[in-house]
């Protein structure tokens, strides 16, 4: 049982061990030790990000509908929309989400996401928490889940960047806070996001520079190679640093010159299909995500884009704004699922629709931990602009998951039917969501990177557990 262990062995082992123990600043990857062999059920992850806090009672978890009346009692209002049936018996969505409702039989509706309790609300901080699984500030720069996946799984197709982020611009309020988690952090820029702020311009990111045709692009690359070969340095020969530089240039050249790059060109999409998706940048982002998935993307995030008081961040006019938001997502999301299902890609693609937290008309924070109010909401609704879910609510949010091994036609978790409409069954938290995503990719829960000599896990302390009921 025990190998004979002699003195010389001991000394070799000892020096190896000390070498490892001395391990310096560079991150050292540890793929986890858990014995069970994990089999990936997904190759690609698409995150559809509802930025700004999407009210569950106005979308995927409608409650009693109370139509608008002047001077109505705000406390009475749980939903400002009617409920509509979905493909699943007894399960209703809010009016305006009929198309997604029709594809619900292809996925799972989670009604019990409980966001972290971070005190006084800051959207970008909750988004940081959702995307990294950690709460800022951190002693090291925490990586975005897309960067983790890029690091751990690498590209599906070598010419398509592993982590693509569609739709977020950084010229808006809180942009510095947004940048803080749109990063690979200590994993290194290599695994960071490839930004496509405008999906209709996606091709520009992956084709030769504007004004340069393919012939010139190829010629320029040849010139570069010739100059390297002819230079004194080139003749000196191989060098690790130079090679890594050249290799990455070569990779970029390949991508910009590859047939797959055509996937970035939305103009190639048949008009009929394009029109279904074209509800704006988010809709086209879904289309781009679909096209890239077909070509072998690894992780794609498509966002409705966060900008303070815009989009889902409804501090007023919640009802009217949500009509537009639902119109923006309903068609494209449903079509994305249908298209992926039709081509069979859905089996190996996990699609998640989520938001940093929910909203409520009355409660800021959560029951038992209400926080400083940030929204003026009169008790008597005197104007239409006060009719809607305007306060930030963290104790009950809806989420959708499709494909990648996720159960079809399933509903998980429940919220109360009376205010506060909080989670009352099967609460799910962010570490569980992350490990559920990692699980589909075959990434073990105790996967970590050693940074500054201590392990930094994909979920805090490696404690995230996949929600197995979802599979």
């Amino acid at each position, binding site marked *: 049982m025990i190998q004979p262990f002699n003195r010389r062995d*001991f000394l070799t*082992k000892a020096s190896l061990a000390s070498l490892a123990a001395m391990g310096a600043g560079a991150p050292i990857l540890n793929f986890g030790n858990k014995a069970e062999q994990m089999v990936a059920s997904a190759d690609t992850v698409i995150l559809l990000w509802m930025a700004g806090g999407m009210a569950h009672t106005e979308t995927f978890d409608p409650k009693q509908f109370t139509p608008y009346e002047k001077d109505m009692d705000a406390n009475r209002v749980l939903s400002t929309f009617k409920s509509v049936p979905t493909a699943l018996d007894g399960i209703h969505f809010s009016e305006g989400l009929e198309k997604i409702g029709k594809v619900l039989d292809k996925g799972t509706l989670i009604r019990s996401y409980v966001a972290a309790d971070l005190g006084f609300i800051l959207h970008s*901080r909750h988004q940081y928490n959702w995307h990294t699984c950690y709460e800022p500030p951190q002693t090291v720069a925490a990586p975005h889940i897309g960067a983790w996946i890029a690091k751990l799984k690498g590209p599906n197709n070598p010419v398509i960047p592993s982590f693509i982020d569609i739709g977020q611009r950084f010229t808006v309020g809180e942009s510095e806070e947004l940048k803080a988690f749109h990063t690979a952090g200590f994993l*290194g820029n290599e695994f960071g996001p*490839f930004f496509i702020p405008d999906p209709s311009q996606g091709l520009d990111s992956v084709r030769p520079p504007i004004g340069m045709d393919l012939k010139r692009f190829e010629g320029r690359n040849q010139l570069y190679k010739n100059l390297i070969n002819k230079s*004194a340095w080139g003749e000196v020969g191989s060098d690790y640093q130079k090679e890594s530089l050249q290799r990455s240039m070569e990779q970029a050249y390949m991508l910009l010159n590859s047939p797959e790059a055509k996937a970035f060109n939305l103009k190639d999409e048949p008009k009929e299909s394009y029109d279904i998706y074209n509800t704006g940048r988010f809709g086209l982002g879904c289309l781009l995500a679909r096209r890239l998935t077909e070509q072998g993307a690894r992780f794609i995030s498509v966002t409705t884009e966060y900008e303070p008081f815009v989009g889902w961040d409804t501090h007023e006019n919640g009802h009217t704004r949500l009509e537009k938001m639902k119109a923006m997502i309903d068609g494209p999301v449903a079509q994305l699922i249908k298209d992926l299902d039709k081509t069979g890609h859905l089996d190996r693609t996990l699609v998640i629709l989520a938001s940093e937290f929910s909203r409520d008309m009355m409660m800021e924070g959560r029951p038992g931990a209400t926080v400083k109010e940030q929204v003026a909401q009169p008790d008597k609704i005197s104007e239409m602009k006060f009719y809607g879910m305007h306060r930030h609510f963290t104790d009950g949010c809806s989420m959708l998951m499709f494909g990648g091994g996720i159960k079809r036609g399933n509903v998980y978790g429940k919220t109360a039917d009376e205010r506060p409409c909080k989670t009352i069954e099967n609460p799910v938290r962010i570490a569980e969501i992350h490990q559920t995503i990692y699980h589909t990719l075959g990434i073990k829960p105790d996967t970590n990177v050693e940074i500054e000599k201590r392990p930094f896990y994909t979920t805090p302390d490696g404690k995230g557990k996949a929600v197995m009921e979802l599979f």
Partner: protein
Amino acid sequence: MEQLNSFWTKIGELHPLVVHFPISLPFVLGLLEILSFKKGKDEFQLTARIILYVAVGSSLISIALGLQLYWEEGDEGVLIQKHLWSGISSGVWIFFALIAHFYNEIKSYRIFLALSIISVSLAGYFGGEYVRMPEESITTDLPDLKDSKDFNNFNDSLELLRNQSHKILQSYCFDCHGPKKSKGRLRLDNLEFALKGGKNGPAIVLGNASKSEMIRRIKLPKDDDDAMPTKGKRPTAAEIKLLEDWINAETATNSKIQNKVSQKNVQSKAILDEWMESPVQPVVNSSLSEEQIVELNIKVRSILAHSCYSCHNATKTKGGLRLDKKEFIFKGGEDGPVLIAGYPEKSDLIRRIKLPDGHDDAMPTKGKRVPQEDIELLEYWIKTGATWPSGPEKSLYRVAELAPRNPILPIVKGINHPIDRFVFTYLKSSNNTFKQSISDAQFIRRVYLDVIGLLPSPEEVNRFLANINPHKREQLVDQLLNQNTAYAQHWLSFWNDLLRNDYAGPGYIDGGRSQIGHWLYASLKNNKSFDVLVRELINPQKESEGFIKGIIWRGTVNSSQSAPMQAAQNVAQVFMGLNLKCASCHDSFISDWKLEESYAFANVFSTKALEIHKCDLPTGKMASYGVLYPALGKINASVSKEERLKQLSEIFVQKKNGRLYRTFVNRIWAQLMGRGIVEPVDAMDNAPWSQDLLDWLAYDFANNGTDIKRLIRFILSSKTYQMKAIGVKSQEFVTASNFVFKGPLRRRLSAEQFADGFSQVFHPLYTDSMIAKKSLPKEIFKEIPFARASLVKNDAFLTALGRPTRENVTTNRNVQGNLLQALELTNGVKFNQALLDGASHWVQRYPLSEQLVQTLYQQSLGRKPTVKELAVAIKYLGKKPQVASVQDLAWAMFLLPEFQFIP
């Protein structure tokens, strides 16, 4: 109702007090009878009558109180029954005695009195026995199986379980279910009582822990109505497990079925036997020397520290087992000893770490499994006798000297420069010699980039090459260092990374950190001495306070990231090359630093006294005040924060704080040479490749006014700096602990150097309007040659080239080539626009291809093109250069490794 109940229980508890009174009375009456019998007189009868009244009355009270206690506590033990009935009968007899006395029936009176005396004696005896009843072990009432040899083995291991279970029950249950009290009519101090149970039936079902009410109740959550114990501490999971094991094992004994004894118990018995039999002084493998024993022991402790400490230490002691100290390791935990010297195969520690993950006994339960080579090392250690040197333990971790040291300069013939004398001696010891020096052309490029971050113009290069002064290199260094503004604009990036100062970033929304750009730029421009810089950062004025102010995110923040704790972490990292991040949350597992020490240091930066939080939970203990290294001095706790910071700044910059100066000279060395003498530069406890060189540089720096430019000049003027650069063979090469210095490493241009080089030569990448003017002094616009990259906000282009987001201290930029960076350089909008704009200017200025190529080569690479290069370039441009082809040529030129690497 409950209050009323407890009132009656209290009253009942008076019973033992009241009872002593009537006990003595029958005896007094007896004495009186003997006296009157002797004297033949009736003179005591009146006294006797009075005493009888009192005796009857007090007996009634005692009985009533006794019954009350009996009903309240529901005790049904045999002793108490005997006590009860004898007590009542003594009351009855004394009552009859009174009646007889009343009717002057002296004979009957005497009989009743005698009976009463006997009864009260018995009651007293039983009562006394009951109260004094020894806390007998449960095991004493068990069937004696000792004579049955077949069962000796597990009987012994069962004995072990019984003893431990008894101890657990004793500490959690006996207070309410023991000889003194038996709430719910339940006693647990004896197996018989436990089996009989209380009001709610048996507490224990032999052989079936899961059906035992006692187990069910102690497992209930604390606030459940049925949960036990109702007061005091609750048993730990391990203790419950042990009780279950014991209950399950009891059947086996009673029904004499050997197989039912769990395998584990047999095993722990076997381990125990081995342990008992193994010699007190384990055989030490003679092939190990004293030194190796120490080394082996340190390895073993490192493995235990890495894999086990987090659950088996002083604060968290799972299974009652500690593995952080010698005595505890050999003592073992609740499951017995964990190792048997000389027998790894019989040691529970080895068994458990070898079990497959998921097995109930497998260790560690969280984190990484113990690597195979570590298991082998532990086995080897146990096999060789689990040796553990006595005397004070050496720290597991290398701890660097704090005090300064002035090593003797080696004398080397023909070499004057102190750095070179140390390096020559070092190289010689590793069988190396000085590498060839770089050429003048390479030197001027390297030194320009290092001092002012810009490229030399072709004119400056030519002038330098033509200069025949033998001291021209030193003169060039001086001349560059004297360019105060250019120097400040270059070194600003190094300091911004180090002090996590940026023109934009998270944390400005909700207060917290603030800009220190004005102060920093002015400090660099004026070459403020290092000790003053440190003073002003630790004990700040308004304009330098940003560094110790934390990054604040709205909402509640983990206590290990409070603003004072961030200050402590950053000051320790930046100035002392010390990582306090682990020890901000709990005692560190990777160093000797303790939570209390971190908090004491953080407390110095805090307006409000800090309470120590362990893993974000309050400990109820207030932090003291300290400066990490007591040898440096003490902080006066009673003064204001401002006063404390002043004290701290003075304590830090003392010359005796050798670590401060070593940390800084090492950073500058790494910046100029591509790798520190110690690496990583933030882990100053790691071994330097030359202790003498590090110590000498630090000592020299501290004793010469801590003049930063002087330090830089000193390094740049050495032969060591001027050696040919060594290519980096892999990422690990730089950080390897067995690194051997052979010369400076080849460095890639930083994002700022690349951008500035391009701006300088071809076309400005940034305009003046992009400069972060709010964060920098106004006069900067007069002091810049063009909008330098160190002065603008971070963007996609600079990020791709490695400029960090400065939320955390960054001392090691990632300069590896990667796809995202290559994409930015290949088709990034910013770079391509600049190439296009520059090309338009260049075609106008240089209408002839050859002229253009010559100029571009000289300006960007500092040399003329070779014939071959010229041919390739002209072929691409054609005779008359066009905008597009110039754009392409410039792109290729700037991406050449020759441009991107410092010679």
